[in-house]
């Protein structure tokens, strides 16, 4: 995928009268981090990048925008946000449109075909404590990683994020402009979920209790999730207070179960929750279980088509009901 093309499309988008700003990626402040870039018309688009380090989703920023105070002001300002979206991001956008979380005409989507992104933890374990902002390019199944004037070659599969190894939709499904050729989907695989399901319930419970006892309730998993956009979240509600503020395994369990179940039939598998967790909780193990169930029980995958309906808002007489008590 050509970064120049991305810049050209970004310039074109920002030249439109109806686009107020663009959200893309730029170099991060150190090491292997990238940063979201918010670029207004006439601002520098040369800072835009797209590389295997672009492992964060930008969709949430559309949902976090604080509305202008008055309707007149809203009507006077250009309304669209231009957004750089990868395959998984495009699924989030589709679902948001389905759920009427965001109107289609609020977005100008620059889709980028994605070859998979690097897992931050893997690359930082390989090259610890790098202060200089590194460059990474993909070449023929390898990543060429450059920092401090030296280049290192690492086989792609060693650093690729786990979720990208089973990605079904590397090419965006919804876009106004698409950059890059179609990328072949990978093979779906739920082996690790099946193996976990096979464990006795006591063992699974013990596993999650141990994991959730580490949770510090920073709510980064919720805040970063493109599909967690309730204006009043049950976790924040004070009256009634659904969730106690005490940080202990029981309350943490409750928190994570609420969060996970809210994503049942909705999670599009971008893995942001797991990426941001400062305590390394394996949250995608829960989300992928739900994803697998939706697939097996209802032959449903979320975010495939903006005109379809979300799973939990539909009913077919032939839907399996065996799990209803």
């Amino acid at each position, binding site marked *: 995928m050509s970064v120049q093309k991305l810049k050209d499309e970004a310039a074109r988008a920002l030249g439109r009268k109806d686009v107020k700003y663009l959200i893309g990626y730029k170099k991060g402040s150190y090491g292997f981090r*990238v940063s979201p870039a918010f670029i207004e018309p006439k601002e520098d688009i040369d800072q835009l990048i797209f590389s295997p380090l672009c492992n964060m989703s930008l969709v949430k920023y559309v949902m976090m925008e*604080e509305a202008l105070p008055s309707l007149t002001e809203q009507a006077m300002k250009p309304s669209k946000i231009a957004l750089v979206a990868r395959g998984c991001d495009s699924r989030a956008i589709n679902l948001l449109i389905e759920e009427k979380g965001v109107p289609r005409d609020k977005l100008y989507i620059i889709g980028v075909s994605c070859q998979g992104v690097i897992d931050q933890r893997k690359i930082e374990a390989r090259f610890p404590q790098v202060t200089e902002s590194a460059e990474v390019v993909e070449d023929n199944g390898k990543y060429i990683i450059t920092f401090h004037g030296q280049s290192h070659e690492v086989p792609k599969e060693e650093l690729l994020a786990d979720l990208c190894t089973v990605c079904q939709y590397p090419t965006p499904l919804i876009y106004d402009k698409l950059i890059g050729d179609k990328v072949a989907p990978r093979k779906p695989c739920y082996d690790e979920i099946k193996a976990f399901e096979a464990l006795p319930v006591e063992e699974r419970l013990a596993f999650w209790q141990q994991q959730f006892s580490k949770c510090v309730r920073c709510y980064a998993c919720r805040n970063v999730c493109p599909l967690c956009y309730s204006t009043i979240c049950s976790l924040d509600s004070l009256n009634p207070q659904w969730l106690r503020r*005490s940080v202990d395994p029981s309350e943490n369990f409750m928190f994570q179960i609420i969060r996970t179940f809210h994503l049942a039939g909705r999670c599009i598998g971008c893995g942001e929750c797991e990426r941001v967790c400062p305590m390394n909780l394996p949250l995608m193990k829960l989300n992928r279980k739900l994803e697998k169930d939706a697939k097996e029980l209802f032959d449903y995958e979320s975010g495939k088509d903006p005109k379809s309906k979300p799973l939990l808002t539909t009913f077919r007489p032939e839907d399996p009901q065996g799990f209803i008590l």
Partner: protein
Amino acid sequence: MDMLILKKDSLKDFLSALSPDYALWAPVEKDGNTLFQPFVDWQNTLPDLTHQAAIIKQTIFPQTELLFSFDQNDQMQEPESGGAKQNILFGVRPCDARSFSLLDPVFKGDIPDPYYCARRNSAILIGIACTEPFANCFCTSVGGSPCGQEGLDLLCTDLGDRYLVAVLSEKGTELTNKTSSLFLPAPAEDLKQGADLAQHAARSMKRQVDLEGLTEKLSKMFEHPVWKKMTLKCIGCGICTYTCPTCYCFDIQDEPLAKKRGRRVRLWDSCMYKEYTLHASGHNPRPTRVERLKNRMYHKFKFNVDSYGTFGCVGCGRCITLCPVNEDLIDNLVAVKGAA
């Protein structure tokens, strides 16, 4: 000040000699991250001294503190003080040791906080010098040093197969006296090596920011557009505040328990949360992320200076390293300094 040598082979003996009398805490790596935890398995594991522990302050200022429990008959019960073993924190970084000195005026000021004081006054801090600073360390920019001794009882410097141990307080002397058979006096060449390493560490600090005049500048910048710009990417989670060793905001809540009982707890709070400043009326004086992030910057670099005479930041770099969206405190400070 005594300078001693402890062989790395003897570290286990040192820790095991202390473990009957003290409650030991140390950084331990598990499932790919390093956390400061009660160190019980000292026979089989060694503390992880190669990574930065994600959080340190819970050792003295726990995230959830039970103040008392009660029932419907007005029977109040205070928590048992748990045998009151003295805490030893092993593997404390110099910046983290300093962070407790910054928390002290808050909790030990005019009205001493009994919960904090009980743990703090009895705690013994055994430091490990940062001979190789981490990527986002900037302690030298906020008045610290990678091999600094402030707030520590012992400071260990890694000399390869042995530690150079500086004994810095009475508590430290008591510990080394108890285990004196494990320590040797440090020879001159080890003292020199330790001093060289300290110099090297200060020089190899990669990130720096000049904060001269920042506090004065902040007093004129409350309405500046720079705040909005730097907030755009913030997702409003609590990572920076919860992992920050000097963030001390807390909330107090009454919570129902089973069998008609309840409890009053004190919990960490985060100024990044909407709920933090939400009034009972529904009004929120910090309605958006912009005001919240701005407040955090002001608290660290202005309000803390006004109240206690120091920055409320020890330069540990955790908020930078752990921020999921690359909200970089140093970059933000540079932006503030450079703002017209």
